[in-house]
């Protein structure tokens, strides 16, 4: 946008009849004119002239020369003085009428107030009309009739809005008879652009928008279509775009599809059975406390199929599962509570979806993924939010091992353009071995993004799965932040139209 381009407004250069009259007047005047003079010349009211000239200026068609001025104006006291006569006039008139010197008692309060007498005496003595001393006596010149005193002349001039002599003005200001009014004198002239703009001389009415009705009946011929300021800024157009975070998740999902994984979903409100118990998380695990899981108010959950519940309880307590010869392990060696199992919680890990999927006893080989929301009561800051997404995945078939798990990590890292990967031990109650994959970020260094492991037999066997299953729960929220160059997780919950549409 160039410097001469108007800063805002529509592209239509709309001139009202008043504006056209004013512009024509300015074009003809050839020199700066006062608003009052323009008003007289055009016959328009002063307010209409002022408004119209300002609108022309906004359209870059007129320019104004503004100069601040000051002038004396009558105060209420000054207006009263004009009406009653100044105190010095009343003293002069009284002494002339009396024809002899007078004492104060003969003047106050009939002719003057006590406050006015010293002022009037001072003024008349300064003008040489009153002799010094008391009683008050006129000088020789003072006895002669006088048309008006300088103070009277100045007061009258102020009443007419005319300038007055500065020394008198100062005295009147002190006496509170006049006040200073500051104003701006504006002289208007046509701008270079305005001088070149042809002002319609036609008497046809002017219109902005071309109305369909005029096209239908042909009356468009009877109107003038106003010219537009073709350089004016156009209205802002917002072009919606896909949400960058959701786009990244889609891209990641398609990457997994390409690797042979099928998508699953699960409920966001779960029972503790699916969120924790089926995953062999001990019922007294710290990650199941109110500090780590959200609990809904007033909801009652239901227990799963009794057989499934019983097998999961057996695994927790280290008992032999029905149809097996020995316990899978020692278990957690604490009593399992069905009451805990039935409690409703907001899903804290998408691994719950894996548990539900495995409970359907899918036929091996199977590869499943789920990208879903999870909730944990973390304090919200730049790196934590109560809501985050995980990409859960399982890979199950005879022969699946840690090698395949690491292979998945490698494939996913390469899929999103990450080359450096390393793996170190980790811990999850439901996998053994458990590992954590780290990727190298150019700015943040090594960051952990690929947690995973082999599902424990205490998870698989109660759910009816007999093949080894590799599982992971990738922090796709963190990966998205890396990919999108974000430093604050709250930016993922973006709803600012400016940023989403690539504008301001």
């Amino acid at each position, binding site marked *: 946008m160039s410097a001469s381009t108007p800063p805002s407004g529509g592209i239509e250069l709309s001139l009202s009849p008043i504006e056209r009259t004013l512009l024509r007047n300015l074009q003809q005047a050839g020199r700066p004119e006062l608003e009052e003079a323009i008003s007289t010349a055009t016959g328009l009211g002063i307010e209409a002239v002022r408004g119209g000239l300002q609108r022309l200026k906004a359209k870059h068609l007129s320019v104004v020369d503004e100069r601040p001025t000051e002038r004396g104006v009558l105060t209420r006291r000054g207006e009263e003085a004009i009406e009653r006569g100044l105190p010095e006039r009343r003293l002069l008139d009284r002494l002339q009428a009396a024809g002899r010197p007078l004492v104060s008692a003969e003047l106050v309060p009939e002719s003057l107030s006590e406050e006015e007498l010293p002022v009037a005496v001072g003024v008349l003595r300064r003008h040489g009309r009153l002799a010094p001393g008391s009683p008050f006596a006129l000088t020789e010149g003072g006895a002669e009739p006088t048309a008006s005193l300088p103070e009277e002349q100045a007061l009258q001039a102020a009443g007419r809005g005319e300038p007055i002599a500065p020394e008198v003005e100062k005295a009147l200001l002190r006496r509170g008879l006049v006040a200073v009014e500051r104003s701006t004198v504006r002289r208007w002239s046509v701008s270079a652009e305005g001088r070149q703009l042809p002002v319609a001389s036609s008497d046809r009415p002017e219109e902005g928008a071309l109305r369909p009705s005029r096209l239908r009946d042909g009356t468009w011929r009877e109107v003038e279509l106003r010219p537009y300021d073709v350089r004016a800024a156009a209205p802002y157009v917002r072009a919606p775009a896909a949400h960058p975070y959701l786009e990244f998740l889609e891209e990641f999902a398609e990457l997994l599809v390409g690797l042979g994984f099928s998508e699953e979903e699960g409920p966001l*409100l779960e029972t503790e059975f699916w969120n924790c118990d089926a995953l062999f998380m001990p019922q007294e695990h710290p990650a199941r406390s109110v500090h780590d899981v959200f609990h*809904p108010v007033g909801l009652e959950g239901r227990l799963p*199929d009794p*057989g499934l519940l019983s097998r999961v309880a057996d695994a927790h307590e280290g008992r032999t599962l029905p149809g097996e010869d020995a316990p899978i392990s020692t278990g957690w060696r604490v009593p399992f509570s069905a009451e805990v199992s039935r409690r*409703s919680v907001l899903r804290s890990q998408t691994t719950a979806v894996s548990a539900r999927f495995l409970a359907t006893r899918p036929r091996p080989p199977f590869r499943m993924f789920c990208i879903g929301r999870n909730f944990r009561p973390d304090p*919200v800051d730049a790196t934590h939010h109560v809501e985050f997404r995980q990409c859960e995945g399982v890979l199950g078939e005879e022969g699946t091992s840690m*090698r395949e798990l690491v292979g998945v990590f490698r494939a996913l890292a390469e899929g999103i353009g990450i080359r450096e990967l390393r793996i*170190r*031990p980790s811990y999850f109650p439901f996998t053994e071995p458990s590992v954590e994959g780290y990727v190298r970020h150019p700015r943040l260094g090594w960051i952990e993004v690929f947690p995973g492991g082999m599902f424990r037999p205490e998870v698989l066997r109660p759910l009816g799965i007999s093949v080894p299953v590799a599982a992971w729960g990738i922090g796709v929220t963190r990966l998205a932040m890396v990919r999108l160059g974000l430093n604050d997780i709250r930016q993922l919950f973006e709803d600012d139209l400016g940023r989403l549409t690539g504008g301001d």
Partner: protein
Amino acid sequence: MPQAVLSVGRLLERLEPAPSPEELRADLFLSKVEVERWEGDALTISCTPDRLDLLCESGLRAYLDGATGRSGGMPVVNEHSLPPGEFLEATERVTPLRPEVAAVLLHPPPGTALDEGMIAEAVHFQELLHATLGYDRRLASLGLYPGGSLRFPLRYDLESMAGLEFTPLGQDRPVPVEQFYAEHPMAQRYGAMGRQGDACLTLRDAHGTVLSLPPVLNSGAVGEIRAGDRRLLLEATGTRRARVEEAIALLALPFLLRGWSAAPVRVKAPDGVRSGEALLAPRRVELPAALIARLSGIDLPPEEVEGLLGRARFAFRRGAEEWLVAAPPWRNDLLGPVDVVEDLLLLRGVRIDEGYYPPSPTVGRRRPESRWRRQVGGWLLGLGFTPVHNSLLLPADHMARLGRTEAIDVANPTSAELSRLRDALQASLLASLGRNLRHGYPQRLSELGPVLRRDPEAESGARTESHLGFVLAGEGVGFSDAASLLEYLLRRCTVQGVREPATLPATIPGRAARLRIAGEVVGELGEIHPAVLEFLGLPVPVAWGELDLHALYPLLGGPTDSAPAEPRATAAPPGDGPTTEI
């Protein structure tokens, strides 16, 4: 992850040759320990919660000894036994409050005694075990006492506090126990676990001396260990026997690894006599050889397996097709053979170059329904609607002002801003409009996402629905805009809906409707009430519409998902197929 601050001096004591800082960091990278800070002698580490034994100097040194090949095999645990009269009696009165108790007596090697370093290590480790395994002392709490003047049998009881006096640790004068419970900071924090009415838990010796008020505090008179002590009592009380026993084994670790011997104390409890021998007994696991290959994907030669078993600080004996593995008593993370395999694989190192992604025997696919949902969302994008992404959790007062009173509240929110679960996208979209006041109008927003609605039939008491919602804000916007859009979307889906008048939250009466197809409610729409607009500061009218895609999809006759999100009603036990042999 639990954290501990270790003394580097004590950690590297007797670790020959001492590793450089770089070597130590590299060794720890392959363990479950992570170095958080290292300032002078203070090494702050965190560790995964399964390996609490690594959070004290002795435990971590034992790991490093083995992992780096400095020494191997299971550390020797010296045990001795106590005369029959040296036992601990737990009365029936403790059963309702804190029934579990276990204890061992610890003796130093000849010519040695307790030193300040051991005291520091034991006290730090004790507090860490309270906070983690003990669940802030609720499941288990530990006490260490000088054993020199103790007289057996010990008695664990619930006694009336009336007339009972106690010298709190750190003080030199006895105070009435009632006063202790009323005033002492430790009693205020843990007292509820150790008292019932006007009675409290006590541990006394045969002299009648009160050793401690479990699980709150030891006696300052007879319960404070000091450098030079040559006999220590280690006891634990709690509500879970397994955790009490694990706590004893873990806190005994710093002593046992310095050659101290331990004697289990017999416990005579109302439910029987426990010898305590299991407290310090090695954990025995039968490790099938095939399981190692099954989990690792690598055929490790038996010699390599045995080398790794030794480095993992296990004792072992080779059988025909398995190893009989014995682990120290403090390895409470070993529930079964897969846990032993993990130790071996992690010690060997999980190598990136051994990763192998096999050709997929399956064809990957998106769920047809999710693919369709994205397609429908794309139609709105094409109509100029900007997709937004909001949290499911919203401020309860915002939802209340919209009249969405059926939405589910969270019992333990972290802030008022995230305290109620949306039951419609309307609430999120209106909040988004409220955050975009500076951008001028018209505005068109859409969101594709889940909502939660109460449903007594659902397993958790609420069902997750997938919705597509939109709002239009601008001069001249009204109900018909929302109606037109929803009709357009349905037309694209090749179905027709019927609008019926409805009273819906946040809408103008008489300008809201439900959308039905074949009797099923599949959507809602309306013009937003001016009171809501005023509340949000919106200067223009707003029209809103929302489709329940979960309800709509089955009505379209499209492909359904082969694997349902809900499991079968009955998941039968494994059949005759191959099983995970362990």
